[in-house]
């Protein structure tokens, strides 16, 4: 049966990729200057004994090889280490930030994919008309806007109408479930919209060019000769073929959702993973960064795997 080999091979590749990324992740942070001990023992009168005790505590007296094996073992148990700044397990801190980020970034990304695909198809279909000029120029406009600037503009326009910062209203004490949901929904609009607007232009342009290429194919002429209506041709013959290159792009950008959106989370004070990474950089919170990188790697690799499998399902020509 077609495909079992392919699927297994792709999964194998994904596992190897994650392993290599984990290794690079480990090496990268051992190359960073200083260690946990130099940071922690930077107190007056730190003795050699204290320093050594700390080294033993952090396992830094062991060789790099041993440390690597321990790191892998702990990873398998889901232990990402302890954050320097919060003195809490990294996995717990990341989980909280991720839960905050996911709805906001997912919403914005889905918005951009839907609007981008729609306007891209319309632009290609209405080629040479003012409709195309309008969709393409607005897509280019939003695509080239700096994210933080667009965020600030939306704040100026909508302040007073919608909340412009944070995830919830801090003054809402003991809200009911629906009250809380409504509060959350009103806070999510502006950051998601900002993200959606800066991202959708890219989709418009890519979908448009993929559609234009497909609409020039001979089988589109055949479809017209058969007597199909234009919209049926777009839906049944053009879109499916044009979606092939777009699938990869969509899957990749879904992979980056877990990275959050640093600029947007800072502009809108959204306590998400992008802001957590930014703060970890400022505080040299290496375990936190290492954990965030790992999360991002795994998410991108998995989404790539999904793109490969989807591509395989959509395009019967792929056999290997």
């Amino acid at each position, binding site marked *: 049966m077609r495909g079992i080999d392919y699927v297994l091979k792709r999964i194998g590749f994904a596992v190897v990729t994650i392993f290599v990324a984990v290794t690079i992740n480990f090496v990268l942070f051992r190359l960073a200057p200083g260690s946990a001990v130099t940071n922690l023992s930077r107190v007056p009168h730190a003795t050699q004994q204290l320093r050594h005790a700390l080294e033993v505590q952090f396992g830094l007296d062991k060789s790099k090889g041993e440390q690597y094996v321990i790191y892998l073992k702990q990873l398998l148990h889901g232990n990402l280490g302890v954050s320097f700044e919060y003195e809490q397990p990294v996995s717990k801190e990341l989980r909280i930030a991720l839960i905050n980020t996911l709805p906001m970034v997912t919403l914005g990304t889905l918005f951009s994919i839907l609007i981008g695909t729609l306007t891209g198809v319309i632009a290609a279909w209405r080629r*040479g008309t003012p409709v195309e000029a309008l969709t393409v120029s607005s897509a280019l406009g939003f695509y080239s806007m700096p994210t933080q600037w667009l965020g600030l503009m939306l704040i100026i326009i909508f302040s007073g109408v919608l909340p412009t910062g944070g995830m919830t209203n801090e003054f809402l004490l003991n809200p009911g479930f629906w009250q809380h949901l409504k509060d959350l929904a009103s806070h999510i609009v502006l950051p998601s919209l900002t993200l959606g607007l800066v991202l959708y232009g890219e989709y418009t342009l890519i979908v448009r060019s993929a559609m234009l290429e497909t609409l020039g*194919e*001979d*089988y589109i*002429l*055949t*479809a*017209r*000769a*058969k*007597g*199909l*209506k234009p919209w049926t041709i777009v839906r*049944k*013959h053009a879109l*499916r*073929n044009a979606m092939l290159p777009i699938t990869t792009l969509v899957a990749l950008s879904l992979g980056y959702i877990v990275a959050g959106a640093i600029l947007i989370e800072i502009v809108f004070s959204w306590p998400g993973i992008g802001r957590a990474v930014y703060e970890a950089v400022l505080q040299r919170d290496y375990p936190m960064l290492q954990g965030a990188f790992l999360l991002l790697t795994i998410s991108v690799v998995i989404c790539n795997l999904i793109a490969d499998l989807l591509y395989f399902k*959509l*395009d*019967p*020509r792929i056999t290997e």
Partner: protein
Amino acid sequence: MSAPLLRVEDLHVWFDLAEGGELHAVQGVGLSLEPGERLGLVGESGCGKTTTALAIMGLLPPSASVSGRVLIDGTDILSGGEAAMRPHRWVDVAIVFQGAMNALNPVRTIGEQIVESLELHNRARGTAARSRTAELLEAVGIPAGRAARYPHELSGGMRQRAAIAMALSCDPRVLIADEPTTALDVMVQAQILELLDALCRDFGLALVLVTHDLPVVAQLCDRCAVMYAGEIVERGPLDLLYHSPGHPYSRMLFAASPDLAGLDEPVLSIPGAPPRLDRPIDGCPFRPRCDSAFAACVERPSLQEVAEDHAAACHLNDRVPA
């Protein structure tokens, strides 16, 4: 007298050029086709034969402007625009394109693509459509089980057969075949030609065969129209054109075809190139390449009867026989 099955009257096509100006690709073409008749439309690349074929079905891109009439049973199908043309497509006139590879959608099975046209024109639905598809595939020599295959899983010849099966799905009365055997190897070419021949006979199809390949026309057609620089310069029964051509271009075209020129005769080539169609043509368009041009050729000749059912556009025929 009843109207012919397909009649094309004074067809003109202009393409807007990107750099400005217009290209007058088809310049007053007239054709007529009776049921079951097979017409070869021949000429060198760029003479407007494919453009004529596409214009008959209203398939030219928006950059083309078309004038003239295309009549099916006496009814003009061009005048109503795209929406009025749609019900005639595939039902009255179907087309097979050259190089079946790209004429079939690569991500849908050939069965799906045939079923689509059956359902679109309400010929059959569901199970009935699938069994009709199986019949059609068998009729063109493809095992019915291959309906579930994708185009890339079939050979070039099989793909062309599938494209023909698809064209026959709604029992069209006219089949246009645009270079149906180009890009196929010689053996497969012969098979496809035999298939077209048999199908035209069995289904009573009228055929318009667009090609630059004269032996193919000789094998399949009974009538022939020769196009040069966007117009028909000669038309008539094939053997008349071959044995007593009324236009020097037809004569030279036949002499330039190795399979038809005869074994001991050298294969000739026609020097020069056709005129540019983006500017007005002065006099006879073939004059610069013609071996028989004379004073009268500064006037553009029109298509005149030279014998019964045989017309040519050449001043050589003007001389009144003594």
